[in-house]
């Protein structure tokens, strides 16, 4: 129920009165989106595929597949086809690579283009926000401006934001970043061929990718190793070397980033929804509802988190849920169940404070329903506190997922996962194949540091008077994994 004041003009009209900044912004946006239109449609197709896959009986799978096939044909800027790196040496020059440069160079160019494009899009979005704020917003100032400004002055938080964005881009553009694809190199290596220059016969020969993998594994000493930033015997470039089974490590790592970040964000999202709804209910009705929630959440919090995760993963090991996305769905569900009490606990206090405010009484006496009061008058004030806690917990979840996969309980093959790669390379750390274990661990350390720094920035921006936050400190650790 919004009352229109005299000064309020619809956004459309405000833009029409001063169209220039909006038009410039829209034109840049059209270019940026245009060069990637095919990829965006592909994502839509993939998402449709995910929905179909999760539904029982896979209805409409054929329609989705034809859609995906149709979309594949649209050329895009940031793609393996435009900047190809998988070529071969024919004795005098490279064949099939971007502009005929070496595969390593072509790959590097593509990585740079991907990041440049992604940062351009983010810059465009930020610019859109600033344009809106300067030219079209009805008011000069909102409390949210202060939050944004505080964050812009928070160097440590910005450092975290940049690291976080780097990893998010890695996850989003995973198919374009790898020197090879999941399909060809990791899932079905025996269905594809690769050409290479055979030194002995002085000829270009073809070999199945699977067989080439067998000959280029990293298992310690001497010729059984493909180090980072080198080519293997089949002329394929490996930025991070190969795994023990000869599959490209970098490709697995970028897809591992996708898996880890998705699990962390989705499970925190579900736990956040549960925690927020419950906080609204307990703060609104108080009394018995609150006592019951205290009891349940205290009991769940009194359980050792890692042990419960291990136990639940073992209990549901043989079920169909575990089959979905190699265990990712199960992990998300388990993490949501285990983590909501922590979220609820962290916002219970603010929710209570809000429920004592006069405007809640006013809303009630206006005859608004409980759910309206909770959604419109209470939740927005508590949401930011939840954001603080959730952003500080993401790193812990990433560590836990890696730890569980390291124990062989989390994400199972063939889906790549950082913790499992560490376990694979464990016995070769002291050998020339040190990269298999070391690099995933470094990536985890980097992304968790970045997420924690970002969380610190969010906390200081939203709530400058936040206390030392002992609970959130514990959340950032990952329960000891």
């Amino acid at each position: 129920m919004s009352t229109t004041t005299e000064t309020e003009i619809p956004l459309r009209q405000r833009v029409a009165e001063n169209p220039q900044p909006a038009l410039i912004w829209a034109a840049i946006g059209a270019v940026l989106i245009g060069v990637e239109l095919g990829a965006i449609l592909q994502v839509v197709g993939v998402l449709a595929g995910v929905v179909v896959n999760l539904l029982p009986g896979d209805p409409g799978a054929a329609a989705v597949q034809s859609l995906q096939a149709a979309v594949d044909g649209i050329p895009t800027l940031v793609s393996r086809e435009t900047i190809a790196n998988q070529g071969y040496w024919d004795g005098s020059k490279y064949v099939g690579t971007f502009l005929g440069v070496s595969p390593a160079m072509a790959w590097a160019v593509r990585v740079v283009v991907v990041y440049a494009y992604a940062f351009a899009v983010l810059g465009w979005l930020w610019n859109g926000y600033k344009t809106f704020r300067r030219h079209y917003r009805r008011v000069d100032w909102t409390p949210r401006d202060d939050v944004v400004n505080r964050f812009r002055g928070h160097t440590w938080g910005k450092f975290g934001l940049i690291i976080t964005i780097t990893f998010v881009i890695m996850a989003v553009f995973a198919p374009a970043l790898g020197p090879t694809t999941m399909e060809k190199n990791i899932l079905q290596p025996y269905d594809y061929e690769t050409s290479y220059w055979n030194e002995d016969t002085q000829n270009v020969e073809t070999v199945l990718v699977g067989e080439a993998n067998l000959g280029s594994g990293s298992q310690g000493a001497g010729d059984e190793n493909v180090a980072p930033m080198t080519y293997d015997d089949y002329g394929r470039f490996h930025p991070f070397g190969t795994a023990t089974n000869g599959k490209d490590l970098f490709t697995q790592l970028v897809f591992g980033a996708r898996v880890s970040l998705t699990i962390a964000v989705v499970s925190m999202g579900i736990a956040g929804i549960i925690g927020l709804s419950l906080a609204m209910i307990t703060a609104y009705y108080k009394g018995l509802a609150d006592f019951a929630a205290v009891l349940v959440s205290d009991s769940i919090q009194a359980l050792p988190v890692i042990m419960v995760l291990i136990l639940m993963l073992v209990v549901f090991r043989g079920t169909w849920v575990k089959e979905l996305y190699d265990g990712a769905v199960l992990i998300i569900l388990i993490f949501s169940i285990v983590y909501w009490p922590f979220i609820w606990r962290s916002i219970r206090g603010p929710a209570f404070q809000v429920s004592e405010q006069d405007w809640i009484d006013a809303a009630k006496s206006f005859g608004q329903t409980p759910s309206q009061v909770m959604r419109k008058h209470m939740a927005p004030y508590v949401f930011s506190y939840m954001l603080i806690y959730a952003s500080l917990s993401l790193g812990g979840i990433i560590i836990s997922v890696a730890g569980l996969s390291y124990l062989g309980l989390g994400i199972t093959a063939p889906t790549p996962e950082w913790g499992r790669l560490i376990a694979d390379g464990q016995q070769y750390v002291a050998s020339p194949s040190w990269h298999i274990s070391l690099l995933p661990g470094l990536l985890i350390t980097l992304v968790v540091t970045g997420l924690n720094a970002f969380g610190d920035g969010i906390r200081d921006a939203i709530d400058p008077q936040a206390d030392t936050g002992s609970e959130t400190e514990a959340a950032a650790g990952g329960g000891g994994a």
Partner: protein
Amino acid sequence: MSRWQYFLRRVLMSIPVVIFGTTITFALIRLGPLDPVSAILGTQYNPQAAEQIRSNLGLNQPLWSQYFDFMYDLFTFQLGQSWVIAPGTTAYELIEVYAPRTIWLGFWSVVIALFVGIPLGFYAGLNPNTPSDYVASFGGIVWRAMPNFWLAIMLVTALSQLGAWTNGLFTWQTWIIKTNVVTPPALGFFQSPIERFMADPGGWFNSLIRATKQIAPAALVLGSASMGNEMRIGRTAVLETINSNYVETARAKGVSGRSLVWKHIFRNALIPLVPIITGEAFLLLGGSVFVETVFAINGLGWLFFNAAINGDLPLIGTLMYIFILILVGTNILQDFLYTVIDPRVGYDG
């Protein structure tokens, strides 16, 4: 409400928490799709034997009666027997064998975390925005972000390779006393320590040093997460206390620097550290699974992990119950410490 009434209420609240937590465990292991009988029989599964075992173990009885038996046994500390890992061995015997190693590991991780983390944090807080503060703070943050299991693997490698890297100048294995890098600590010397010490003081000390050296790398890794936490909280707490009015007043009154730091800053800065220190119990229990796996220490975490993957239901239930008791006990300890340290507890409800 007085402080002690508040404390008593917290203690009473922990009883339903233990009951409910144990119930969750029961629900997980008995209502879930895990079949204990096929776990016991393994590959020699046949319906007849399965039925036999089922009736022997009382799995035919209605679920509620199994539940009450389960709860009654645990709460009267009849902890039952292992079914799969060590059939016929009582949980008591298993815990007696495995627990000392975990306690030894936990003890040293707490010591390392407390005596490195808190002083570093306080030092950084007393010298804010200096290069050493930045190094300490940044180091603590990165240290905390490293996964324990990965850190453990890297440490094992580094220690085993030290000899090769330094051309044999320094090897961890032969340093002070000869040990392996990856090994369970030999804790035999703790059995009847006084008599052994009397009989052979030198040998006893030797064993003590050996066991400490054996556990040191694992304890360093396990203590790392809480060490980082304690450092950060310690730094913020000191910073906040320094800038508070009562410290200003004390300084104006001419309180000496030493007394100012120890009496006015240190004690107050400890208050926010209490939950971090007691919260270590969670990190230690959870982390013990990983660290014990990497360092081949067969302690409680290792025992729980193996009980879980082998579907050893009574052992899982018992260990979970004990872990819950430990954690609830630490929570009560935390409330007790609050009650003692902070006179404000209980006044604002």
